[in-house]
């Protein structure tokens, strides 16, 4: 019984780590998307208009 509880807790911790990693990935992509937009604005102002 105890081993089942330990295993459930370990699995929970692993899944939370995985979820936080996913949220971290989204944060990185958000920053990259903002960088892409800033890059686009600079390119537009310099070469496209």
């Amino acid at each position, binding site marked *: 019984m105890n081993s089942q509880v330990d295993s459930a807790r370990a699995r929970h911790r692993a899944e939370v780590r995985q979820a936080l990693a996913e949220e971290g990935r*989204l944060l990185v992509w958000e920053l990259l*998307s903002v960088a892409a937009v800033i890059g686009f604005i600079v390119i537009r102002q310099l070469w496209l208009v």
Partner: protein
Amino acid sequence: MVQLAHWLAQLGLWTLVAMVLLGAVPLVAAVCQFLLIGLHRLRHHYRDTSAFEPRVAILVPAWNEAAVLEASIDRLVGLEYSPDRLRVYVVDDASTDATPEVVQAKARQYPGMVVHLRRDKGGQGKAHTLNHGLRTILADDWMQALLIMDADVIYEPDSLRKMTRHLADERVGAVTAYIKEGSRPGNYLQRFVAYEYITAQAAARRAQNVLGALACLAGGAQLHSRANLEAIGGQIDTSSLAEDTFTTFNTQLAGNRVVFEGNATVWAEEPDGIVGLWKQRLRWARGNVQVTLRFRHLWFHPNRDHKLGSISFGIFWFSLFLLPVFMIASSAALLTLYFVDFPLSWLVFRQLWIINAISYLFITCFALAIDPATARRAWLEAVLFPGLVSVAIIAYTCAPVGFEAAVWWWGEHTGLVWGSVTTRVAMLIAYSWLSLCMPIAWLGKKAEELGRGWLSPLFIYLGGYGPLLCAVTFTSYIRELRGAEMTWDKTIKTGKVAISA
């Protein structure tokens, strides 16, 4: 007197400019919402979760769902969850197909885990069906948490466990999951829905987690604690077409938190035709009108007990709810400016579309990164979500010189004379496009109704899927103003959901 006339003229012009810029409000609000997503890494509910497995009753409303129920029940029973802590209650809403036989066969196959409840009088809508099941489930104290779902949705094996972990925190009353479009192979419309769900669920609901106020628990994936169900009166609101949104609001008004679990995935089959999609979305949109009116005392009234009255939540809600109003006001003001002060109209038009272009670029890039699997499947629909014409206007705004050169080159090779009249017509279409795109997208539905369904994709790609939803919202205003009957048009499901899990 002359000065007063001049002052009034200036006031009129600036009012028109402000009205034009209203057209950018929904996209700017969406950008703000998307910017909150990154904060979800810092402001989340995971630190208050634990390996918690309450006894879960799964409530499945079913009306003529024989085609999908067998697979759904098998999947539910096979969830990664202790079997002795799981029961499936199928409320058969007076089905006339093989639904009773399918459920009874499953009840024999999984004794004690599958329960068949039958309503002799059906067709009153999902909320009545749910309440029938709720009365039975609440009558004994076995259930600690209740999962409300749709008969056709398929839960990933670990999804329920990922949802229940949030209920370890007693402040949480309800949890919802990320519903993904699961039809395979699926058609163009289902790929549009797949992309829409990234923006409306995976993105928007994460942002709402950060704000601390959730707009809607997905109808196909609502997990409630028993305490929450009792706090909201032990039943689902039957007076509207948006029973899930009412439940979401009532939960938060009862002082309980609502959490979106973006890593719990649930697959659903969405309509493969515009007429079916229109009926489904019109029901949702009319429900939103009813919610907006019913909870009118909440909007923009910050409250200590819940965040539904916060300014930010109100802005996000109304930027979508009033989308058609913003679009029509913007186009009308632009066209007026065109005749009153053309140089100013051209300046404002370009500023409006530069804002739209930047917003579109950011939202599309980020949304595709949020769900890479859906992005691989629906990238074209993501790019063309606002419609081909809007994308062309965005391209022109971004690179006017290159765009004009391309148009001239195209004109020379096709023999199209690009004279002043053509330019003026193109300009008037571009000015009015924020409104015009809605009837163009609506023609896609009309084509399907007239048996010319092959034309529908053309109208949707041209006018845009976003504008189609906008047209639905506009229609919902009219239906509600007319007090049209609240009919529950069931979405036809064929069991085409296929997932690898």
